[in-house]
């Protein structure tokens, strides 16, 4: 069976302008959202604070819970529904707040809604110090990963390719971050993990195309670079679609069946894998062609490599 005809020769490179503009628009949308909302929405682990998740036989209304907590002076608590049987209560960490705030919250809720058999399911408390530590580490880890990959590709291919790959990475990460901001999804440690995975995955795709470009340049040294790049994308298209397809398939299973705890994580992967596939075709490869002189310099050194 073949999804993609063997002799396909679609003009991807010809669409690079449209692709660049489209990507820029999506990225700007995300950046705009981040700007309007004053930065990303941080989860408990990065912002610090306390999260208490309570399971009931049947969850009370969010408004009811809010009223009960407000009566006890916790009006600033954010209450979220977690399916039909659970709610999550979040409070920011404040100066002089007792460490037992999670127990207070649970005892208030369990007293008021005792008929709905409340049970404490999850408690997460992160001090502000740890939160800012983790935030710094999170950003650093993404930077380290990108630098590490840049080095590796420079070593295996050459710097121009590394630039293209990193352009695609930055593209993927900013779109994922933007989508999260637009959809008001919180940034947590697992999301950073997802972003790092997206970085690795998007590269995976990019490298397959790059490898083919390098091979084709060696085989047809006389051909125009743009044509070589385009036919390389076409030759690997079947594989690109298949792999993205199978990976999306499993991540989709994770998204559907994995439950609340890793819902956002699998959503990030879902977005990232789609964007990563798109970028290895429309961003990473066309970037190689940017700058006339550079392009010819690129092929000379590829031939020598």
């Amino acid at each position, binding site marked *: 069976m073949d999804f993609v005809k063997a002799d396909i020769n679609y003009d991807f490179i010809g669409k690079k302008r449209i692709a660049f503009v489209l990507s820029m628009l999506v990225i700007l949308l995300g950046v705009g959202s981040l700007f309007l909302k004053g930065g990303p929405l941080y989860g408990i682990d990065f912002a610090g604070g306390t999260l208490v998740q309570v399971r009931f036989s049947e969850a009370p209304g969010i408004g009811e819970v809010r009223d009960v907590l407000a009566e006890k002076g916790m009006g600033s608590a954010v209450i979220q529904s977690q399916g039909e049987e659970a709610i999550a209560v979040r409070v920011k960490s404040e100066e002089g707040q007792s460490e037992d705030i999670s127990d207070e919250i649970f005892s208030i809720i369990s007293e008021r809604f005792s008929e709905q058999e409340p049970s404490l399911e999850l408690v997460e408390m992160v001090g502000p110090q740890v939160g800012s530590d983790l935030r710094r580490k999170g950003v650093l880890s993404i930077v380290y990963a990108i630098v590490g990959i840049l080095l590796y590709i420079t070593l295996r291919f050459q710097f121009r390719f590394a630039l293209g790959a990193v352009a695609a990475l930055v593209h993927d990460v900013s779109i994922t971050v933007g989508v999260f901001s637009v959809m008001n999804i919180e940034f947590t440690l697992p999301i950073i993990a997802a972003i790092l995975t997206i970085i690795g995955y998007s590269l995976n795709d990019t490298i397959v195309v790059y490898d083919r470009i390098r091979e084709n340049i060696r085989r047809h040294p006389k051909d125009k670079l743009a044509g070589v790049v385009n036919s390389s994308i076409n030759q690997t298209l079947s594989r690109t679609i*298949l792999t993205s397809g199978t990976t999306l398939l*499993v991540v989709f299973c994770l998204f559907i069946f994995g439950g609340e705890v890793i819902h956002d994580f699998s959503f990030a992967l879902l977005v990232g894998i789609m964007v990563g596939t798109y970028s290895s075709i429309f961003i990473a490869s066309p970037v190689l062609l940017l700058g006339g002189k550079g392009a010819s310099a690129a092929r000379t050194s590829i031939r020598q490599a």
Partner: protein
Amino acid sequence: MRTRVKTKLIIVLLVLVGALVAVTPSLTDALPGWWKKILPSKAVQLGLDLKGGMELLLEVQVEEAVNNALTRYASDLKTVMRDEHIRIRRAETTAFNRLLVEVGRDKYRDEAAAILREEFPGIDVSEESETTLVLSFPEEEITRLQENSVVQALETIRSRVDEFGVSEPTILRQGSRRILIQLPGIEDPQRAISLVKRTAVLKFMIVDEQASVDNVPIGDVVLYGKDYDPATRRVQRTPYVLEDRVLLTGDTIKDARVRYDTQFGRPYVSLEFDKIGARIFEQITAENVNRRAAIVLDDNVYSAPTIRERIAGGAATITGDFTPDEAADLAIVLRAGSLPASVEILQKWTVSPTLGTDSIRKGLMSIAFGFCLVIVFMILYFRFSGIVANIALIMNLVVIMGVLALFQATLTLPGIAGIVLTIGMAVDANVLIFERIKEEQRTGKTVRAAIDAGYSKAFLTIVDANITTLIAALVLFQFGTGSVKGFAVTLTIGVITSMFTAIFVSRTIFEAWLENRSLEKLSI
């Protein structure tokens, strides 16, 4: 069959058997005795998010340990100065590493400084004003005290947790002053927290009967006791004016046990002092007959019984409105000793076992569905070759679990997600190879030549692509904590094992299949 193919088949089978052996303990509890003797018998470790339990990140307040040490000097110093007939107006720790000593008259200052320098050579003494001196520790001493306090806190917490009876607790030092505690499967997190956090400094002090709370003389302190009033159903705070001298501390406790009084069956804690403690206790009780001795734990007065007579033998009791659990925990902390400084909770994470079980179920379901979809897809798309890839995929799953069990890596929910992701990525290598083989077949190569070319041309691409994922996973491992680290672990293992199964195993299957067969065209 050619020997080369045979050798490869044997390698594949050996790895498969090895992985199966490593996985078996995770699947069953009933391992035969001989198995445990010669084969690995450890099951895959589940993280707290799957098992339920609590994780705490504590920070030892090391500055406090330094100041506590200074404060101990303050009480020694008063004794020394009393012997020398120098009046000390006050001696107290006013800031970090700063013990302020005020002498009664300015003429005493230099004399006091000289005595202090001689008596306490390890401490810096500096003149601050006409009547005040400042004592502080030199830099190395601060470092030593802080380091000691963390080491000691770690030891103390470890022995408390051990006595609390948690199975397989993890207590680790993190960085210079942090302690990470993992308590899988505990039922009452709050109780465990108070057990771990309690400073548990026990002091015996004498009640100053002459003084009143409104007029506290110099040299006395006011501490409070908590009394439960059954009439009002409220906890009352009762003030006690105590002489600011610690007669005996908890350091000299040899044993502490819960007992029940014979009359009402109420729990109390009985203490047994070591030899030195017993001697001091006897002396104190002898000197203070008919006065009240306050038993102070972490600056709360538990009780203040009147000393009727000299007590020899080194035994005392602490009574209060304890529940049996509270009394048991008090006995544990007194046995394990006090913390050198208080600890602050930086991070707390508790997961109920039901949520953990739920996560396991959902994780397994995701694996099962993802796995089945991929398998079906591969067969539909690649036919016979798809089956070969599927065999490699199944083997990959087994090997991942085997490696997890063998290295005793912790499996977490994100870790399961990592396995799911690996399923998707593992077929990538086979897709790459198969698409390449298709291309080579189109150029008119024989089946065997096409397979050879497909594998060899796709090989470097696969390695390159996987190494970038590995770089990302390693960075994540370095930076991630807890459950996220579990994701990095399975992703790393999965990427490595998938290279083996997708390249080596699938090729071996092809080669074995093609032995003595000549195919016109490969079903791919």
